[in-house]
């Protein structure tokens, strides 16, 4: 299965990133391009709990395709969220269920941010996403 164009571009960029500084810069850049969330979307129902940072995840479907929006008050986490969204945006439920997101972050060289240890938000976001798409 070929990657969405945005995802392929992100992958190329991160594969060539050298060192933690460049990775962090790239995360901040991609995070800054994340579509902002309306204040009205920052509800408790959209909050992802289990993160030390504030994270919101909004989901919806258009013509059977999943549309996600997400943001956080932490900058680097916004970058990780952006990398998640480019991979899952527009997929149908079947494709989303079949997707190995851990492998995606491993490809990006960012798998350590998926650790279930509680200071990290990405793990909780993935759990929440699975929960949301499997209970329509």
């Amino acid at each position, binding site marked *: 299965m070929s990657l969405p164009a945005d995802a392929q571009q992100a992958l190329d960029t991160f594969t060539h990133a050298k060192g*933690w*500084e460049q*990775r*962090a*810069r790239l995360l*901040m850049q991609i995070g800054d391009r994340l579509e902002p969330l309306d204040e009205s979307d920052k509800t408790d129902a959209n909050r992802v709990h289990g993160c*030390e*940072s*504030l994270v919101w995840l909004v989901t919806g479907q258009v013509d059977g395709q999943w549309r996600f929006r997400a943001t*956080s*008050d*932490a*900058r*680097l*986490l916004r970058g990780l969220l952006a990398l998640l969204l480019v991979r899952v945006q527009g997929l149908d439920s079947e494709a989303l269920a079949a997707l190995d997101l851990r492998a995606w972050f491993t490809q990006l060289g960012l798998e*350590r*941010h998926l650790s279930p240890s*509680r*200071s990290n*938000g990405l793990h909780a976001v993935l759990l929440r996403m699975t929960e949301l798409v499997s209970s329509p």
Partner: protein
Amino acid sequence: MFQPSPWRADFPAITALQRQHQTYLDSAATTQKPQALLDALSHYYSHGAANVHRAQHLPGALATQAFETSRDKVAAWLNAADSRQIIFTHGATSALNLLAYGLEHGFEAGDEIAVSALEHHANLLPWQQLARRRNLRLVVLPLDEHGRIDLDQALQLIGSRTRLVALSQLSNVLGTWQPLPALLAHARAQGALSVVDGAQGVVHGRHDVQQLGCDFYVFSSHKLYGPDGVGALYGRTEALARLRHWQFGGEMVQLADYHEASFRPAPLGFEAGTPPIASVIGLGATLDYLASLDPAAVAAHEASLHQHLVRGLADREGVRMLGTPQSALASFVIDGVHNADIAHLLTEQGIAVRAGHHCAMPLLKGLGLEGAIRVSLGLYNDSDDLQRFFDALDQGLELLR
């Protein structure tokens, strides 16, 4: 000037972590272990494990002897008058829960329990839940601007309705020593029982429970360079006699019939089931190791490193420390920078510190913070560890700003 730790080589994991480019500054969460402990565990398991207080056979007798010798060592470490005043638990949390359940029968609706505003969840939630079960009033003693219990207010708040006070000795977030002598004396004068959470305090300096004058003192082995899964509860003999049995099972019983049973007194009556035998033996070996160190040298090393940490943080623009840390650790936030971002970048650079609410959510909320970064020291840390942390912090901040 480089300040080495003379004890660094006694902790093999520090070298292993260094090979993985990790600088360990999270000892308030848990500590690395001395070789003496690893040897004791290996010796116990390779020379014949056996259950304690049960078997007549030789391995059982040897295990029981080693186990009980550890109890003597814990008693000596705390200067308890008698080893029977030491109950082994699974950690400080389980010791505090034991107390909250074991003392429950002595409370009546309307009685008061006093805790401080800085308690770790382990010394807050057991009392909060006891208060809810029994319709008691939980009184929260406020802090001063340095992060110490406000003595004047506390002496007013601890009164004739107070049945129990439960206080941390050294804050796990603020690094402040609490004014326990005055508070404990006052509590005693009011007829209240006192519980000291020594989880952090026991790691720094030697503490004499008789001199401290508390009814109960708890600590966790794993924060004191010992194995995890074991903790200790010291109780004054008269105070221990007030405890009701709370967990039932093997070895805590004297006589059992289908419909009734009688139970042993402390300590064995409060050690139901097979205890963490290897860990208890390992804790004994750790205490032997710690007792072999020059206490003045350890104190001087820790104080000097702590000063280095606090100064370095104070020198940095935008860094705001929580309270006025006196020992062991310092927590901070940075103006305009999210904790999670700092934590992320420190992690990327191999600096192991703790970020978040540090199991003291009400305290952080009271300070108006979502979280903070905590740097905490062990006796194996040296000034290079701190330098690596400061360099990483500066690099991270440069990137974020």
